[in-house]
């Protein structure tokens, strides 16, 4: 099993969720995050105090998938999240040594 971590633009969440679902991914967990990278941030000004904020709002998706689904899942994300502009985000993959469904105590790929 692998854990796919995708950082995307927030307004692409629904598209990516749909694409992942179509690719056979059953579940995922989503977090609001702030990203730092090539995409520039913005300026805020309050009564003369200027703040440059170089973090931009992003959405992180984590999905545990069986090994055989990894390629399709990555493709699905890349396909759905792209806008051809800086800041579209990344996909990272890491290994999972175990997965358990709390409700049933099922373990392994059945738990996903």
């Amino acid at each position, binding site marked *: 099993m692998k854990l796919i971590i995708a950082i995307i633009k927030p*307004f692409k969440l*629904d598209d990516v969720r749909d694409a992942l679902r179509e690719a056979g991914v059953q579940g995922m967990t989503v977090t609001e995050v702030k990203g730092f990278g090539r995409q520039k941030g*913005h*300026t*805020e*000004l*309050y009564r003369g105090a200027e703040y440059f904020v170089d973090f931009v709002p992003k959405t992180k998706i984590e999905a545990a998938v069986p090994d055989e689904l990894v390629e399709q899942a990555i493709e699905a994300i890349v396909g759905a999240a792209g806008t051809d502009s800086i800041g579209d985000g990344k996909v990272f993959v890491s290994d999972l040594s175990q997965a358990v469904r709390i409700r049933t105590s099922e373990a392994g790929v059945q738990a996903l």
Partner: protein
Amino acid sequence: MQNKISKRVLAGMYAVVALVTPGLAVAQDALDSGDTAWMLTSTALVLFMTIPGLSLFYAGMVRAKNALSVMMQCFTICCLMTILWVLYVYSLAFADGSAFVGGFGNAFMANVGVDTLSGTIPESVFSMFQLTFAIITPALIVGAFAERMKFSAMLWFMGLWVSLVYGPVCHWVWGGGWLGEMGVLDFAGGTVVHINAGVAGLVAAIVLGKRSGYPKSPMKPSNLVLTMVGAAMLWVGWFGFNAGSELAADGVAGMAMAVTQIATAAAALTWMFIEWKSHGKPSALGLVSGAVAGLVAITPASGFVGPMGALAIGIASGLGCYLAVVKAKRAFGYDDSLDAFGVHGIGGIIGALLTGVFVDAGLGGAGLGEGVTMASQVSKQVVGIAATIVYCGVVSFIILKVLDSVIGLRVNEQDEQEGLDLALHDEQGYNL
């Protein structure tokens, strides 16, 4: 009732008379401290309707990234209208002039001194009370184009609109102009304020086009808690709007307050129960939308109808505005972001029409004028409505088109995505 109508109309006339013979006005009428106390209070109440009332009502309904922008628009309108008002718009609306527009006799507040009266109250108070109407009317329009208009274009539009539309229409109805002369009944602004704002909003929504993503992407209200606070402030402030339009603290003002309360409650419950019935659950936003619909509809009628007329007007407007907002908007496909037309335009029309019905003494109203039948009163109302719709619609359209070609009306796609608060104002509403 004639008495009441004339009181409203007289207010404008006193302003005029005072110009020519200030001593005379004072001779005819003396200042009444009770009436003045109520009108000072009413002025505060109606200002309170726009800031913070309407600002909050609107800010809570937009997405968080645009919350400040709508508040700022309402605030800036408040400031800009104040300056234009004292420079020349008050004069356009209420100074002696033609049947279509006032003259410049009160420009720069000329001839409005500490001792100038308008009826039993200082003219300074009359002018400020009327100013608060000239503030809330354009501010209402903000709801129609929220989340996508350039701030600079908004300023130009509002400045031109109040000069070319609001001032004249106000003069027609309250300043001694042709609609008032004809006997159109509009106690507190069904045509002048609500139809006017609603129609301008509809035109703006169409000219600007839909928000990017509408209606597919979710555009959930960011803070309905604040929207409910704003609605409550509108409700309470509306007592100043309607009961204040009597320009005195008397029985008509009292009844105007009572019918305002009744119609509002009835409209809110109507909307709530329809939604409950049709969707399965009653919602807070539905409830307060109904309340605002009722407030709008009772506005033209408030000095003329009785408690049971108010009940009927409330129910009718709750139903009518629900249909406009929930059904018609979707059917026609325009993006009136916060339903300025659906609530104020439609509610104003319903109210203006029904004023002609429930003014009838037989229906508990103050009574039709001498020689006026219900049918003839209703047709006068129709003329008032139609004239406002056509004039406001056409002129608003022209102003918008001209501005669009000169400076552009809409922010670009990226700014809309980022949100107007950051894109146009370099600040954020919430950093919690």
